[in-house]
C-alpha cells in the first residue's frame, strides 16, 4: 500500500447520500379502489370498441344489467340465502369440531400422535370427491352440503389450531402453573387468548376453502345457490349472468373478509 493512501484527500464537502431507499411498500386505500375503477373502465372500452367480442366477455354494463335483473326479480336473495345458510352451517360445524380436536391434539399426549396421523392422512383428500358418499350418508338435500363444507373446513382448522396452541409462549403457561392456577383457568385465560391470533388468521383460510367447496357442491346438485346460478347461466351461455354470479361471489368473499377483520379488531385490540 502506498503511503499516499493515508494522505488526507482534499475534495469538496459532500452530503452523505441517503441509501436506504425502497423495500417499504405502503398501503393506499385510494389506489386499491382506483385499480378496480380503471380495470372496469378499460373493460368497458374494450367491449364498446368491439376489441373484446360480446361472446367472449360480456361488457360491464351488460353484467350490471343482469345483476339488476337478479335483484329486482328477487332471485338474487333466494340464491344468496341458500348459499349463506350452507356456508354458515357448514363452516360453523367444521370450525367448532376443528377447534375442539385441535385443542385436544395441542394439549394432550394421548391425542397427539393419533390426531396428527389421521389429520395428515385425510387432509389432502379433496372433500368434493366425497360428495357422492356424503349424499349416501346424509341424503341429497342440505346435510350433504353441510358435510362437504364442514369436512373441508375441519382439517385445516385442526392443523392451524394445534399449531396455535403449540406456539403459545411456554413461559406464560409455566407462570400460570407457578401460581397454582387450575388447568381449566390456564386453558381459558392463557392458552385460548394466546392462540387466538393464529386461530383468527386461520379463519380467513378456512372461510375461503368453505366458499370454494360451497360453489362446487352447489354445482353438483342444488336448485338454488350462487353456484347453481352460475352453473345454469353457464349451460345456457348467458355469460352476463355468469359474470354477475361471479361478482356476487367476490362481494360475498369480501364481506366475509371484512367481518373477520372486525372480529380481529374486536378480539385482538390488545395487540
Amino acid at each position, binding site marked *: 500500500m502506498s503511503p499516499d493512501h493515508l494522505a488526507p484527500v482534499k475534495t469538496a464537502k459532500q452530503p452523505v447520500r441517503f441509501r436506504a431507499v425502497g423495500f417499504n411498500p405502503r398501503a393506499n386505500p385510494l389506489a386499491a379502489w382506483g385499480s378496480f375503477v380503471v380495470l372496469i373502465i378499460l373493460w368497458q372500452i374494450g367491449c364498446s370498441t368491439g376489441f373484446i367480442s360480446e361472446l367472449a366477455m360480456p361488457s360491464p354494463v351488460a353484467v350490471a344489467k343482469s345483476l339488476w335483473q337478479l335483484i329486482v326479480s328477487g332471485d338474487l336473495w333466494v340464491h344468496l340465502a341458500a348459499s349463506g345458510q350452507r356456508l354458515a352451517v357448514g363452516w360453523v360445524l367444521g370450525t367448532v369440531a376443528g377447534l375442539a380436536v385441535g385443542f385436544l391434539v395441542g394439549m394432550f399426549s394421548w391425542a397427539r400422535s393419533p390426531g396428527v396421523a389421521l389429520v395428515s392422512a385425510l387432509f389432502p383428500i379433496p372433500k368434493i370427491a366425497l360428495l357422492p358418499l356424503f349424499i349416501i350418508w346424509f341424503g341429497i338435500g342440505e346435510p350433504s352440503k353441510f358435510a362437504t363444507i364442514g369436512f373441508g373446513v375441519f382439517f385445516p382448522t385442526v392443523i392451524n389450531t394445534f399449531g396455535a396452541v403449540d406456539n403459545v409462549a411456554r*413461559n406464560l403457561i409455566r407462570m400460570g402453573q407457578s401460581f397454582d*392456577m387450575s388447568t381449566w383457568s390456564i386453558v381459558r385465560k392463557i392458552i385460548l387468548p394466546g392462540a387466538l391470533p393464529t386461530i383468527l388468521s386461520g379463519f380467513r383460510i378456512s372461510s375461503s376453502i368453505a366458499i370454494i367447496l360451497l360453489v362446487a357442491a352447489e354445482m353438483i346438485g342444488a336448485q338454488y345457490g350462487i353456484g347453481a346460478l352460475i352453473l345454469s347461466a353457464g349451460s345456457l351461455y348467458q355469460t352476463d349472468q355468469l359474470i354477475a354470479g361471479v361478482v356476487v361471489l367476490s362481494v360475498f368473499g369480501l364481506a366475509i373478509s371484512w367481518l373477520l377483520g372486525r372480529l380481529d379488531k374486536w378480539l385482538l385490540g*390488545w395487540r
Partner: protein
Amino acid sequence: MRLEISGVCHRYDQVEALRDINLTIEPGEIVALIGPSGCGKSTLLSIIGGLLKPSEGKISASGAVPDGCLNPLTYVFQDFALLPWRTVAGNISLVLEDHKLSKAERAARIDEVLEQTGLADFRNAFPKQLSGGMKQRVGIARALAVRPAVLLMDEPLSALDAQTRILLLDEFSALFARTGMTAVYVTHNLNEAVRLAHRVVALRRRPGTIKEIHTIDVPIDQRREGDPLIVAHETALWELIRDEAIAADKELENVA
C-alpha cells in the same frame, strides 16, 4: 417459612445439571445463587418451587406462612411473563381469580400492591405500553398480591438496562428490608448479590455443586453502593467464581 433442600440431584438426558445439593433457607433470609452460565441455577430454582421434579432428593417446607398467603412459593421471572392481553391490574387479578376471595378483597389486594410498587397510575395500561422496569414492577406486584412466604427470583433484573437496574435494585433492597421477606435470588451479577443477600451460594458447574457459601453480615438496608465493605465482599465473590467463569466462557455449547 423454612425451606430444606436435601440431596437434590438432577439430570437432563445426558447432562448432569445438579449433584447432591444440600441447603437450608431460613425464614427471613435472602439467599443469592451465583455461578457461571449453565451451572444449574435456574434448574435449582425450578426444583425449589416445584416446577421441575428433581431426579433425586427432595425439598421440604416447614413453618408458618404469612396471613392471607395464597401461594407460598412465588416466582418473579426474568422475562416478566405478563399476559399481553391483560392490563396491569388484570395481570395481577389473574393470579387471584382462582382463589376464594370476595370481589372487594381482590380489588383491595390489587390496589395495595399497585400502591406498593408505584404502579397506581398504570393500572389500566397494557404491558406493551410499559418500559422494562415497569413490566418487572408488575411482576413484583403480581407476586406480592398472593402474599408469598418465599420469593423465587430468576435473574429479575437481567432483561433491564443499567439505569433501570440500579433503580429496581434499590426498590428490592427496600422491599426486603421492610417486609423481612424470604427469597432465593438467582443472578449473574455479583453486585446484586452483595446488595441483597444475607448468604451468597456460589455454584460450580458440570455438574452443579455448591462450591462455597459466603455470608454477608451487614443489614441489607445499611448497604450502600461503593461502601468498601460491600466492595470487598464483591471482590471476594469474584475471586471465588472467576476460574469457573473463565472455563464456562471457553466451553463450546453442546446443548441447544
